[in-house]
């Protein structure tokens, strides 16, 4: 086998320019896929991280029917204390669940005494919220650095930066929130602007934040209610099994009509970015398909040329007593070696490219999110599978030329001009 490999390498070196060009083409294909995977994967991971860790959370549990009408921010679809206790009972005992936090969603009128506008608010329990969304404060600015840890106190409000710019509001300003409760009565409370948040992509990305106790006071809730329970898992990769488990457990609770009392959704169902993520995956698969085509056509072309150029040589091999199997092995090894050299070069240059992209940081904007930093990376598993694909395609592309060479009759081949 070593001898066949040696002959294959020398045959490749015999046509240096052709081998170099073909290898370069395949190397470029591998390189582009590695860079694209690194960049798109990093973009996807970063955006999902932003959505789940800074805003939406990984899983949300609501009263049945809330999500389909969430745009209207209905207050009559809140969970009462009993429902809250039931959900908490399930979450406490689930081994995959890390933490959870109650939220109240509401709409209100925000006034800075000179202008008034609508605002969607997310009322949170800050201590619990930072456990569920650890990056919630990362895209917020506060008057003092220490305040980021506390996030928000009763009487404070965090407003979206676009709104702050539009209404010329800054940290420490006093504003009024006016809201209708579910019975239709109106209430107003004063708040101090404690922080300004950058926009995060998604349905809840442009919301302001207030303390959950303030929301209950503003909405004049006689008994504590929540709109949703945000859930964080110990391992994000276990999202699907955890979701299925929780969904099954919640399905046991029925409302008065005998229908499920709760509904549960992962971030994938709640954020439109999931469709973008799917598109990224599709583009990534397309890139791989293009690379496979490049490898397949390049090696097929080179190997067919090689067979037709060496008909007499194949005839000589055969006349000397080389079995068809060994002739086939020789040409397969040539194709495989060409693929192997290109895989090696592509992987080395690709990893170096990722390394340099990390040195020269790439910043970009997505939607209304600015100053996002990409940290491209490529996993060993991904490199392994990419290499395996190129390797298999190289062998497959060499199969036909190798078969053709092995089937040549020595008399015909030796008489070839």
């Amino acid at each position, binding site marked *: 086998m070593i001898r066949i490999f040696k002959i294959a390498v020398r045959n490749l070196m015999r046509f240096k320019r052709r081998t170099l060009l073909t290898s370069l083409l395949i190397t470029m294909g591998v390189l582009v896929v590695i860079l694209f995977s690194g960049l798109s994967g990093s973009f996807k991971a970063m955006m999902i991280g932003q959505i789940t860790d800074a805003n939406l959370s990984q899983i949300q549990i609501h009263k049945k029917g809330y999500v389909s009408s969430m745009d209207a921010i209905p207050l009559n679809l809140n969970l009462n204390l009993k429902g809250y206790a039931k959900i908490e009972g399930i979450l406490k005992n689930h081994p995959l669940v890390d933490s959870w936090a109650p939220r109240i969603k509401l709409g209100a009128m925000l006034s800075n005494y000179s202008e008034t506008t609508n605002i969607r608010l997310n009322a949170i329990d800050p201590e619990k919220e930072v456990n569920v969304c650890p990056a919630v404060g990362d895209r917020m600015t506060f008057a003092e650095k220490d305040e980021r840890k506390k996030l928000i106190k009763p009487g404070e409000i965090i407003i979206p930066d676009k709104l702050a710019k539009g209404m010329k509001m800054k940290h420490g300003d006093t504003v009024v929130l006016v809201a209708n409760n579910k019975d239709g009565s109106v209430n107003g409370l004063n708040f101090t602007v404690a922080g300004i948040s950058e926009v995060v992509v998604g349905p809840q990305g442009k919301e302001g934040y207030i303390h959950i106790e303030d929301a209950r006071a503003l909405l004049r809730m006689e008994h504590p209610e929540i709109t949703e329970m945000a859930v964080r898992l110990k391992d994000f990769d276990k999202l699907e099994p955890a979701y299925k488990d929780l969904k099954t457990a919640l399905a046991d609770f029925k409302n008065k009509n005998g229908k499920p009392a709760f509904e549960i959704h992962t971030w994938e169902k709640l954020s439109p970015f999931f469709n973008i993520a799917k598109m990224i995956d599709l583009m990534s698969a397309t890139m791989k398909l293009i690379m496979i085509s490049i490898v397949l056509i390049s090696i097929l072309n080179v190997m067919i040329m090689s067979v037709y150029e060496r008909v007499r040589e194949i005839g000589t091999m055969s006349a000397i*007593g080389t*079995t068809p199997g060994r002739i086939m092995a020789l040409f397969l090894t040539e194709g495989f070696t060409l693929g192997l050299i290109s895989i090696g070069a592509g992987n080395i240059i690709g990893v170096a490219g990722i390394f340099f992209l990390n040195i020269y940081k790439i910043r970009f904007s997505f939607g209304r999110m600015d100053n996002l930093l990409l940290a491209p990376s490529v996993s060993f598993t991904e490199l392994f599978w990419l290499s395996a694909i190129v390797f298999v395609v190289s062998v497959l592309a060499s199969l036909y030329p190798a078969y053709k060479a092995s089937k040549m009759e020595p008399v015909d081949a030796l008489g070839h001009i």
Partner: protein
Amino acid sequence: MPTVICGYRNIIVDGKQVDALNRKQSAVFRGSILGYIFQAFNLFPVLTAYENVEYPLVMTKKEQSPNRNQQVLEVLEAVGMIDQKDKRPDQLSGGQKQRVAVARALVTRPKLVLADEPTANLDRKTAINVIRLMRNMRDEFNTTFIFSTHDPGIMEEAEVIHSLEDGRLIHPEKRSSSVQEEKE
């Protein structure tokens, strides 16, 4: 000398019906019984003289390395190419290439060597040397050589001559080897 019997349908060489063999068996047969010397040498350009001679042993006989090395060196010594063993075909002259080709044909100790105009691309002196080399090989390894040629000078060196005329075989002309040796 191996028995070669050619009938209307059957070709039997050394007791084997050649035309009944499949592709793999044919290859194994060629590797073990036959040796070939080509008019255009047909050496593998990517292999050195040593590797060209070694090739049939690696690809067909599967000889173990120590024996293989000894066999290759022996036959290269016999054809006078031991000093050129590390050169590739493009670094050798026509005569040297043909010597390597002869060595390659003989390294497997074949019973029969078929040579297609082995001297056609060589000058007279080299051609006679190659023919003499083949005769020495015959004596040393008990190998039968059948070769085709248009060169009357080379024919002088042969023991039995069969003439082909318009694709038909003319009667054989047997020559005494002692007469040839006297000529030498």
